[in-house]
């Protein structure tokens, strides 16, 4: 039961076999590990709206999970793409929270994946005045977050 999961090695192998000439850097995060991929062909690896990147991250995490259910999840980025998207989402969350605080209204954000919602929730975690809930949206597996004042 002492299999040593090597997220970086797994990702490098996947990229190599896919034909991407890439290097992978490890960066520790508060809540896990970030693997940042540097490649000439970053557009192809990111895909439309980051879809290929999401798929790569999902499968890497599935392999890690198969090695042991307690293995920490990794986040994969390509040349800072996700870092930029993450920062934009956090800003959006804070702006929406400010709107709720100022007007006392409910603000609904557009439907997002669980991954993106987690970024929103995390950036509002320490805000005592805001309550955030996810609601189902017809026609998509994504959910919308509602922000409202906490009473």
């Amino acid at each position: 039961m002492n299999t040593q999961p090597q997220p970086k090695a797994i990702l490098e192998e996947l990229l190599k076999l896919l034909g991407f000439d890439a290097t992978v850097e490890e960066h520790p995060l508060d809540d896990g590990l970030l693997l940042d991929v540097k490649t000439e062909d970053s557009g192809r690896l990111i895909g439309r709206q980051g879809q290929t990147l999401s798929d790569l991250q999902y499968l890497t995490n599935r392999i890690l999970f198969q090695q042991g259910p307690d293995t920490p999840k990794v986040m994969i980025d390509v040349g800072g793409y996700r870092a930029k998207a993450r920062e934009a989402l956090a800003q959006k969350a804070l702006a929406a929270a400010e709107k709720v605080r100022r007007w006392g209204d409910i603000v609904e954000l557009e439907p997002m994946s669980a991954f993106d919602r987690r970024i929103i929730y995390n950036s509002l975690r320490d805000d005592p005045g805001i309550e955030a809930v996810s609601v189902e949206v017809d026609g998509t597996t994504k959910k919308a977050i509602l922000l409202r004042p906490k009473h």
Partner: protein
Amino acid sequence: MQAFLEYLVKGLVQHPESVTVTPVARDAVTIYELRLHPDDVGKIIGRQGMTINAIRSLLVAGSAKKALRCTLEIVEDTPAAKA
């Protein structure tokens, strides 16, 4: 692409020794036939096809880079079925 699929799929299943990937060329498209231990088929498909679609997406991204067209199909051999 075959080595990629084998490495990836073997990393995802309970029975890596039962995984085979067979390329079948049809016109300009290469179809990779994937055979698995019956217990692993659901795992490779994933919830709402999530896992198999993610594998296909990477396969397409990688093969497009080499100007190839590839698809992936799971083949379930049913021995001695239908009597």
